[in-house]
């Protein structure tokens, strides 16, 4: 009952503070621009006077693969960055402002306080990713060829899982921290740690970043899987949320 009341307030906050609008606008822009960039980058190069013909020849004719690769690249960079930026202040700012103390004397459990924030962010990012996906699908259709719906849906699902990993870690950082600066620091430590370890050969196969290449392979018709990385990603999300709840329950606000 209270979960829905608080969730409703969180959604209203996403809307009134323009968070939803910002995430949706950035995601849609990158969704639309990915096939455009893939298609027109060689054209743009050609139009620049003085570019050596050898270099232009090195660019093969753009394909649908380029559009998908560009889309995944954009989402893996800006999607994650936006997930961190939108999440890392949500708890610590309420602690600093005093709204957390004001509401935690009401019939709102600390778990509800945290999880409704996470749920509202999930809703915002799902809606924004859906807009990006539709934009990317449509422009790819116009500029290249229609994308297979099934694998494209799975690809976006995998992108969402990676975004949720960083969102959950940022929520944990925001819960642990006593000031916004500390929350920012902790969130970026998590980003560097997971990104850095994920780039290592073999070890990287078990990290969330591996889900991007799984998604791209699926789009190309390959049958490569990364179930370990998928399971570990879900595990990180669950662990981060559970630890955040335990820490927050013990914290004096």
């Amino acid at each position, binding site marked *: *009952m*209270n979960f829905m*009341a*608080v969730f*409703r*307030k969180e959604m209203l*906050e996403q809307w*009134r*503070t323009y968070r939803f609008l910002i995430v949706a606008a950035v995601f849609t822009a990158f969704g639309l621009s990915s096939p455009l960039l893939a298609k027109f980058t060689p054209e743009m190069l050609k139009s620049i006077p003085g570019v050596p013909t050898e270099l232009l020849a090195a660019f093969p004719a753009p394909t649908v693969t380029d559009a998908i690769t560009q889309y995944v690249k954009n989402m893996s960079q800006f999607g994650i960055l936006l997930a961190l930026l939108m999440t890392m202040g949500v708890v610590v700012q309420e602690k600093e*402002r*005093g*709204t957390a*103390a*004001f509401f*935690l*004397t*009401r*019939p*709102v*459990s600390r778990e509800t306080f945290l999880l409704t924030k996470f749920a509202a962010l999930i809703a915002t990012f799902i809606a924004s990713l859906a807009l990006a996906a539709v934009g990317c699908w449509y422009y790819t259709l116009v500029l290249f060829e229609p994308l297979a719906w099934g694998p494209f849906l799975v690809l976006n699902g995998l992108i969402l899982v990676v975004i949720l990993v960083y969102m959950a870690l940022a929520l944990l950082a925001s819960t642990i921290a006593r000031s916004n600066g500390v929350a920012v620091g902790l969130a970026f430590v998590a980003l560097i740690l997971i990104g850095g370890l994920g780039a290592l050969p073999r070890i990287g196969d078990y990290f969330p970043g591996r889900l991007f290449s799984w998604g791209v392979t699926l789009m190309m018709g390959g049958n490569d899987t990364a179930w370990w990385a998928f399971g570990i990603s879900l595990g990180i999300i669950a662990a981060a949320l559970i630890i955040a709840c335990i820490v927050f329950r013990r914290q*004096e*606000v």
Partner: protein
Amino acid sequence: MSSVHIENLKKYYGTVHALDGLDLDVAPGTVFGFLGPNGAGKTTTLRILTGLARPTSGKAQVAGLDVLKDGRRLSRRIGHLPEEPAFYPWMTPREFLDYLGRLYGLSSSERNSRTRELLGLVRMEDVSRRRIGGFSRGMRQRLGVAAALIHRPEVLFLDEPASALDPVGRKEVLDLIENLRGQCTVVMSTHILADVERVCDVVGIIAKGRMLVQSPREELLERYAVPAFEVEGDDRAALAHWAEDLRRLPWVTAVAPRNGAFRITVRDVQSAKRELLALAVNSGLTLNRYEEVRPSLEDVFLQLVGTESVA
């Protein structure tokens, strides 16, 4: 049964003893003034009683519920106004009170009527659709009072409710608290003695995390009252000379200048009443004021807290 019952409550932050064995009992329906200097432990006590902080040891009950074990049930029975109530700036007062009503499980019609009623009580109907972000401190405080009352709590905790307000804002908030008498138990922490004198029935004075005294206001004033008279006149030099002579009288214990007058502390009130005015008249003094001093809470507070800080 007490509305608030605290036994040997301790709260340590490292080597700092914010509460050092606090005992407190507040009877139902009382407007209780929790008085103490800054840093005495008032806010820490309220934070423990509202579930925001955990005690190091000791027992704390509100409305018969243990604050540590029954936090969920307790939150439905208490109201809390922190010293600086914080709101979501993007909400309007109407939305804010409606949201709180939802948290307490009020029906849609209950929420509507209660929101209207409370906005009227705190005189905010005309700004009910404006965003809270632009509100003054006084408006926020009034909205905080409304927020604390939305679910008709049994016990209301107010932390320094009027300390940062201008005289008009202070009067409004104190009037609101006065109107709550008999509707619920109010525990109000403050360091402003005049506020306590105005609205509280029972006073508890805390210093260094310990309760120095707890008593009905009038009893406290009587218990700690020092019998004294104040005399004020135009001719200060003659008055000073006359006052000095009074020291020789057996029923006079002290003579001290105070705010342009002289305060004469006595050990025998009846003798003083009988002789003091006559002595002044016979000395040819022209008096502007002669009165038996009514003891103030400030006198009691300074006596108690002063003693404590020396100890």
